[in-house]
């Protein structure tokens, strides 16, 4: 049943999202000090990492839901994976846009084909394929199975992207979260801005995912209703 409490909860989450994102903006753009070496341009980092994190989470969820789909063959798991893949791709795209904006003034180039950037680009291509694959395979079951396999393979690449800065020579900075002792952020206001941005973007991706799955569920129910109406009309 479409309960009133559901809509109240959904709107409450939106209010929380608004407050957290506002705090993230205030901390990232106003309170956190500028970087010693890079100055104010470093502030884009809060939104760059803030959009990478939900993308990785979404890709892991694609793998989880795809495995559940392959085991149970329930369409609802496929729908959840599909929306997570779309959201992951969106946030990954945001990271790939904010990255070069940050890279140009600090490195002097928009893009460098180092391990981190190249692996991220490959990850982005895999999930672009994941999102558009269904439109190119006519057999629905086959499309779902292929998408699930591609989603699992894509998510398996996320650890490679994350650890690429440790395993290979890179122009890209090393990890900030789970960093070594001599690297990472030390300033408490910078850390607060980072965690607020992470929380805000994670919540935003959850809100998008929830609405997306809701919409696909409704579409599936509508298809079923249409079929039942057609059967009734034929019987009349």
């Amino acid at each position, binding site marked *: 049943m479409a309960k009133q409490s559901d809509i109240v909860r*959904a709107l409450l989450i*939106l209010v929380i999202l*608004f407050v957290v*994102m506002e705090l993230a903006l205030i901390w990232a753009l*106003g309170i956190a000090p500028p970087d010693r070496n890079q100055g104010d341009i470093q502030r884009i980092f809060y939104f760059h990492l803030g959009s990478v994190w939900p993308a990785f989470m979404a890709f892991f969820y694609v793998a989880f839901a795809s495995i559940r789909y392959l085991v149970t063959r329930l369409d609802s798991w496929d729908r959840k994976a599909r929306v997570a893949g779309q959201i992951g791709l969106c946030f990954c795209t945001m990271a790939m846009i904010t990255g070069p904006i940050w890279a140009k003034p600090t490195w002097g180039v928009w893009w460098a084909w180092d391990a981190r950037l190249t692996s991220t680009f490959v990850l982005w291509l895999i999930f672009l394929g994941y999102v558009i694959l269904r439109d190119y395979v006519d057999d629905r079951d086959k499309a779902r199975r292929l998408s699930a396999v591609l989603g699992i393979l894509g998510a398996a690449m996320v650890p490679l992207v994350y650890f690429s800065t440790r395993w290979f020579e890179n122009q890209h900075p090393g990890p900030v979260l789970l960093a070594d002792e001599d690297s990472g952020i030390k300033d408490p206001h910078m850390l607060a801005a980072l965690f607020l941005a992470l929380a805000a973007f994670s919540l935003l991706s959850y809100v998008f995912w929830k*609405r997306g799955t809701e919409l696909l569920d409704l579409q599936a*129910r509508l298809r079923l*209703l249409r079929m039942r109406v057609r059967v009734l009309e034929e019987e009349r």
Partner: protein
Amino acid sequence: MTHAVYLISAYTVVWILICFFLATLVIKNHRLKRDMEELESRLNALESELEQLRDAS
């Protein structure tokens, strides 16, 4: 600091718009779900009515 205030204000406006869009989406989805449930229950009633008619004939 003034630049930061302008930036924060500009992004706040964007955020208000995005949250407004999301709120309308929440409300529309909720209404859609309610209408769908109503249609499903009507269809269930019609199907059982048809079943009864078929049994009677």
